[in-house]
């Protein structure tokens, strides 16, 4: 079935996740093959998702780990885990 751009946009997220029904996926791919705008929307969305998964985007506060383990240390010295 020939899809319009707007319909393709509705499927972008599931297309990226690979969870579209095979028939719908084939329709989306047919549209993407000839539509520059939808291809650019797909590529940019996928690119943004890849960037966001990188650890450098959301950095930890300075000495976060040090403070966490120092606090933990105090508890580990004196407490056992609770029995079930």
């Amino acid at each position: 079935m020939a899809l319009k751009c707007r319909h393709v946009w509705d499927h972008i997220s599931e297309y990226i996740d690979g969870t579209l029904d095979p028939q719908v996926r084939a329709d989306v791919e047919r549209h993407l093959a000839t539509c520059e705008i939808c291809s650019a929307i797909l590529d940019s969305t996928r690119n943004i998702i890849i960037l966001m998964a990188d650890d450098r985007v959301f950095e930890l506060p300075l000495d976060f780990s040090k403070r966490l383990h120092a606090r933990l240390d105090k508890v580990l010295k004196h407490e056992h885990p609770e029995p079930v």
Partner: protein
Amino acid sequence: MTASDALGAAAKSGAEAALIAAILAGDREKFHLLILPYEGQLFRTAFALVKNAEEAEDVVQDAVLKAYRKLASFRGDAKFSTWLIAITLNEARGRLRRENRAIVDSLDEQREDNADFTPAALTDWREVPLAALERQEIRKLLQQAVAELPDAYREIVTLRDVEEYSVNDTAELLGISVALVKVRLHRARLLLQKKLAPQLSRTVKVELKRSPKRSLFGRLSWL
């Protein structure tokens, strides 16, 4: 998941099971090692909910202490990382509730229906390489765009796209249906694309224009 990913995951969960057994048997110091790989994940998840670095740090510390105290109740049928994240989400939600800042889970339906979820139309997209993340300007754009998402979208994007949990795990962690995760994830991704694609595209273009001059000083165009 490839065969080697599956093997890696099995080895990791086996190593974690051994650590947990050792801690419960009295080698308490090993708890440091057990949580080490997850610190960043816990912080980012807490931050997505409380939206403040100091508070997120407190939430993580409280969650980690709780995880230690309750370690004997961890059952091997869930992944340890999922169990830890669930405790962190609970801590963050508890804090928001106590301060009357609870995330309204059913987004205002009116707003959800009327919001504009059309993406930014571009005719071509020049890929932004991961190396571009060395630049603070690019990191800031991404942080800002995530921070500006409605609360319920931000927590889904954080779990699914930043921490890369599956849609099913995200649904379970948030206590909502898989269908709702998919709808919100889709909208959140389009909101991010709409906001970020033009900004990133512009930044990349400016960089390309500048790069011939910069090349005099070496290949610094992405630094």
